């Protein structure tokens, strides 16, 4: 069963410690949400987990394999959307999905059925032959998600998946995440929207200044208050000489 693990992972940009000795685990069938303010380190953490950025120290593991040396077979099981959604403006929706599927190891023979399935799943049929440059922001986000998940990965990393989506898109993504996790996928998701994450996540970790500063109970009440109390506590701790995670 596939999992995502970060072991004391650290990354700095000059003097800025973006992620600081962070430990994290996402097990099979689990949706683990990370929430934090802008610049908390969410995107850097996800980039390290996907091998986009090398850690200064520590390790990122996918299915027990260090991402720095992960073979193609490991990446076949991974789908991600971090920052900019996949989508070449000159290609149509259907061409983009086919391109993403090919790069993710879907065979030429499976391409038609895989493409049709994902277009139906993300309700993109109406725009299937429209070029990506002509799509609304919301539909570009849907296209990006469709491309990330076209091969039904067992490891999913999504950065702000509900960005720009209309309410029906938000519900669609929520249902999709639940469905994939129920099927055994390990999902790491980041968001600014605590309430949205509380609806789908099994675990919510609060990230601040590159460290996990606490866990938020998805079934709890007044989640924002809990989050800001953690952030405030971390800032006070920092001023007094160090953050206690």
């Amino acid at each position, binding site marked *: 069963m596939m999992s995502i693990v970060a072991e004391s992972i650290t990354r700095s940009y000059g003097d800025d410690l973006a992620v600081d000795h962070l430990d994290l685990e996402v097990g099979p069938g689990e949706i683990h949400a990370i929430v934090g303010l802008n610049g908390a380190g969410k995107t850097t953490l996800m980039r390290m987990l*996907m*091998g986009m*950025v090398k850690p200064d120290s520590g390790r990122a593991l996918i299915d027990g394999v260090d991402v720095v040396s992960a073979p193609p077979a490991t*990446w076949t099981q991974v789908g991600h959307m971090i920052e*900019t959604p996949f989508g*070449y403006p*000159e290609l149509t929706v259907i061409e983009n999905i086919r391109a993403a599927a090919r*790069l993710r190891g879907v065979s030429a023979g499976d391409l038609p059925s895989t493409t049709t399935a994902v277009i139906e799943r993300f309700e993109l049929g109406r725009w299937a032959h429209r070029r990506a440059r002509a799509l609304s922001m919301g539909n570009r986000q849907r296209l990006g998600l469709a491309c990330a998940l076209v091969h039904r990965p067992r490891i999913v990393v999504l950065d702000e998946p509900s960005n720009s989506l209309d309410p029906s898109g938000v519900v669609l993504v929520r249902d999709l995440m639940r469905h994939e996790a129920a099927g055994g996928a390990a999902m790491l998701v980041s968001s600014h929207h605590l309430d949205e994450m509380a609806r789908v996540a099994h675990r919510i970790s609060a990230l601040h200044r590159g460290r996990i500063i606490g866990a938020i109970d998805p079934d709890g009440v007044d989640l924002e208050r809990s989050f800001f109390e953690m952030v405030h506590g971390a800032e006070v701790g920092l001023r007094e000489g160090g953050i206690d995670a």
Partner: protein
Amino acid sequence: MREALSVELLKLRRSPVAWTAGLALVILIPALCLGLVSVVEGSGAGPMAEKVRALVSGTGWVAYSGLIDQVATSGLFVGVGIVVIWCFGREFSDRTVGSLFALPTSRGTIAGAKLIVVTGWSLFVSTLVVLVAVGLGLAGDLGPLNAAALEELGEVLAVALLTSLLASTLALPTSVGRGYLPGIGAMVLVLVSAQMAVLFQAGAWYPFAAPGLWAVAGSQGEVLVTLPQLAMAPVLALVGAGVTVRWWQGFELA
């Protein structure tokens, strides 16, 4: 590799940049050269005819193909270079590069596929330039194609292919600089430095200047560039391709 090739080929087929550059090269280079030869061989008077006459040696097909040699050297480098710069730079400028990580298809393979596709395209366009040039020449009343003319046209094809290969080296500065501007800067630098190398009589040893120098000298009956010197151009293109693939394999997002 097959997967990456099919994706890169699709992107190039849908690219307005590749279509515009390809059509401009295939139509403009032969048409411009035929027009200039007509000016020289026409009434022959006026300041423009005098200026063109300084660039042209011989008459008919020899003058025409000699002129194409000169125009194609820099024209193809710029035209093909723009497509190379677009092909690699767009991943950074359009911010699509992040989607090329964490895939079973490695980034080195994707870069290799880009180079193969764009080089294939440039060789196709180079060949088309020569074929269109022959067609326009026949229609333009330059007389029958004789052995000398065919030799000149063979030279044009060789220069066009070498220049296209050299343009692929722009992939590296575009990638390392992560966008279009570093690639364009490198292209300008190459064009200026090639002129300087010729000016200081070191052009034969400078791979970016050698093909053009060989063609121009050849059409005037001189031998200024030897075969080993000319062979530096494809060697440089190969080395550039290797370094580009290696860079793509190991780079991380900024």
